């Protein structure tokens, strides 16, 4: 990971050699669009961009109604609201906490 590139959106040291930031999925080296009031336009996350978290990964698919596809490593968990669930592998473990959780080497996909 090159140490001199900092993603302007998540502000973490990032990898400038890829096309998207592995921490937040923002495109790399896209000109920042800032209006007179100081609002910065968030660039759309590219189709199939990958985002790492812990030992797991999230992939964003689709451009109209994007889907977040999670590949969860053993022991990793995510939580989400009930209505966003789209599909899961049959071995995905879902449990109700204060929020529904999924984990343990699972793949699942959520939509907003």
């Amino acid at each position, binding site marked *: 990971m090159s140490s001199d590139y900092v993603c302007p959106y998540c502000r973490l040291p990032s990898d400038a050699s890829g096309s998207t930031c592995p921490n937040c999925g923002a495109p790399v080296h896209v000109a920042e669009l800032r209006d007179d009031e100081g609002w910065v336009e968030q660039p759309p996350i590219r*189709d199939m961009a990958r985002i790492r978290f812990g030992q797991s990964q999230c992939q964003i*698919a*689709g451009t*109209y*109604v994007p889907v977040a*596809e999670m590949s969860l490593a053993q022991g990793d968990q995510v939580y989400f609201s009930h209505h966003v669930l*789209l599909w*899961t592998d049959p071995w995905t473990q879902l449990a109700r906490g204060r929020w529904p959780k999924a984990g343990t080497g699972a793949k699942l*996909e959520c*939509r907003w």
Partner: protein
Amino acid sequence: MERIACSWCHYENEPGRTSCGTCGAPLDVANTVSESGWQSAPRLREMAEFRVGNITCQIAGQVVPVAEFTLAAGDTIFFEQHTLLWKERTVCLTGKNLKQRGQRMIAGMPHAVIEAQGPGRIAVTRDASGEVVVLPLHPEVETDVRGHAFLAASANVGYDFIRIEKLASMFHGGPGMYLDRFVANQAQGLLLLHGYGNVFQRRLGPGEKILVEPGGFLYKDAPVTIHPVPVPKGTGFRHANWAELIGPGRVGIQSMYVHRHTS
């Protein structure tokens, strides 16, 4: 020169083409497939033309797509009444009642379709945002589609339906899910669907299973079985069912669900 295989419909195109002649999918862009094997439905280029038999079709518009057909004399397509957008005067329209009309009416399904016969041009749309999915149908291969997703088909495609008990959106409920069943007779047929949001397709191997939220299910090959499977207790879902799909064959999902109330 080598022919170019379409990654969506597998038609072998002649060299030099930039879009598939049978389904319109771009041939010169990389296939987008997620890590889990979901392939994005091809984003058809504005006005890309494709052809099945003597019927030519173009998809126009990106947000609320329109399917425009050019029909040769005697060629026929059919579609639901409310999807008609415009037609040329030479195109002849006739209504056709479907089998089990009463049962379909009770279920809130369309009980009649319009047949349009060429020569001339005609356009249909579902008046909704999303993607048009082009599925060239090989003869005798059945495809099952969720209700209200059908956009248009060529006349040689048979249209029937089946009901899957206990399958409805996890959050809106309902009496079950009706699937339209399409099969092309003798020659290759053309089937167009409308998927809300983005559409993804995955090919399941023999015995391979996947659980899909029923509102996200869009279509499947007939050999893929679909069953309601209760969501385990303790997850916060009440009386909800997954759609369990078991291969072999293709499964299509949509990333957005629009609920339709039945009378």
